[in-house]
């Protein structure tokens, strides 16, 4: 696959799944040259534009560079650049709002995990349950109305597909060190239709180079 003439990318992040799995999927599906850097932390903190990670560096063939921060900005930039978000702003907004809502779910997940008092934990748990149930139902409804059941929108891999996969992978497979019921919490809300969608993403040839090296999310959520 010819990548000459195309920019190459460096993704700077910590050496775990974290908030950038969707970025990794986008870079893979974009069929560009890309690498990942894991800066020493916090030694390299002040070298980052916003003192935070992730950072994306796009190096163009003429030597110029674009440096971006903020995971959601990076995701949308890659999705638009590689054609995984619709050009129409309205259709794009329908996909973007799902990812934006994920942030609120993450926040409530970590909040309920790290608060101390029993009362706070109870309220935190209720809020997470409400937000997570709601977002899963929204995804399920979208699948119901899409004639192609392998994707959330249209019949090709999209930003929405990849960001759902990244989101569930973080919560369901890579949050066990925070709470040992993380996988169970996610599994409880999965429907056959969503698992089918996740299988399609996992089997998509565009993502083989990355997901081929990873454990299966679908297996983790099905067993």
């Amino acid at each position: 696959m010819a990548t000459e003439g195309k920019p190459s990318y460096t993704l700077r992040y910590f050496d775990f799944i974290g908030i950038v799995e969707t970025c990794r999927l986008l870079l893979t599906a974009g069929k560009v040259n890309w690498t990942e850097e894991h800066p020493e932390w916090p030694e390299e903190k002040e070298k980052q534009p916003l003192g935070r990670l992730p950072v994306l560096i796009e190096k163009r063939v003429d030597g110029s560079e674009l440096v971006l921060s903020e995971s959601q900005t990076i995701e949308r930039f890659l999705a638009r650049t590689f054609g995984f978000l619709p050009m129409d702003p309205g259709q794009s907004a329908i996909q973007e709002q799902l990812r934006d809502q994920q942030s609120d779910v993450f926040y409530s997940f970590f909040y309920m995990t790290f608060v101390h008092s029993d009362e706070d934990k109870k309220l935190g748990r209720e809020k997470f349950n409400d937000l997570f149930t709601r977002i899963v139902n929204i995804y399920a409804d979208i699948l119901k109305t899409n004639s192609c059941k392998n994707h959330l929108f249209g019949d090709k891999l999209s930003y929405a597909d990849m960001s759902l996969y990244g989101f569930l992978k973080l919560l369901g497979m890579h949050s066990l060190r925070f709470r040992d019921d993380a996988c169970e919490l996610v599994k409880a809300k999965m429907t056959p239709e969503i698992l089918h969608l996740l299988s399609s993403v996992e089997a998509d040839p565009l993502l083989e180079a990355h997901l081929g090296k990873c454990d299966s999310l679908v297996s983790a959520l099905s067993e």
Partner: protein
Amino acid sequence: MATTNTPSYTLRYFEAIGLGESIRLLLTAANVEWTEEHPEWPQEKPNQPFGRLPVLIEKSADGSPDFVICESGNIERYLARTYGFLPTDLKKAALQEQVRDIMSDVGTAFAGYIRAISEEDKKARFEAFGEILDKYIAIQTKTIQSNGNTGRLFGDNLSYADIVTYSLFKNMGIGFVKFKADILDIVKPKLTPEIIKLISTVETDPKLAKIVLKSGNLSALISA
């Protein structure tokens, strides 16, 4: 000038600056017809697509079904792109969008501080909030300086980045007062001349005249 072919909008949100202000400013600058609804809360929660606010409803002029979207950042970006306040160039747009995304981190840090109960937690979270706010101010200041120090972050005209930056400081100075009465006293000394100039540039922009001072005069408060 809005024609009868342009859509009209309803913004559903709380009666607060919060996450609605940038949307109000964008709708005003776009010079479109729009109104605001303040749903009874939490009674109307189940009636919202994501159970949350804000919600934007776009009504087309030709009677086709309403277009409804959620998530404040998403609504802002949609309006900014549709009405020309974000560049069409993807890279330039991304440089503005990250301004808004880091702004959310500042808001989240503040919310974390407000939630803290123990004195130890309060202290730690307040320091974390201060640190991220300082960093945000430093970055914005540098950007304003590299843009010719005209009180704008990018280019020569009112931009998405200008609007969302203004809204953040409006919350810091006015919106958040109900959570921390002395927030303005804490934030004021941190403001650089460049940020103060941005605030006044946005507040005096004719495109925003109809609405910008409705939620308060931030420039006046800062110079008091």
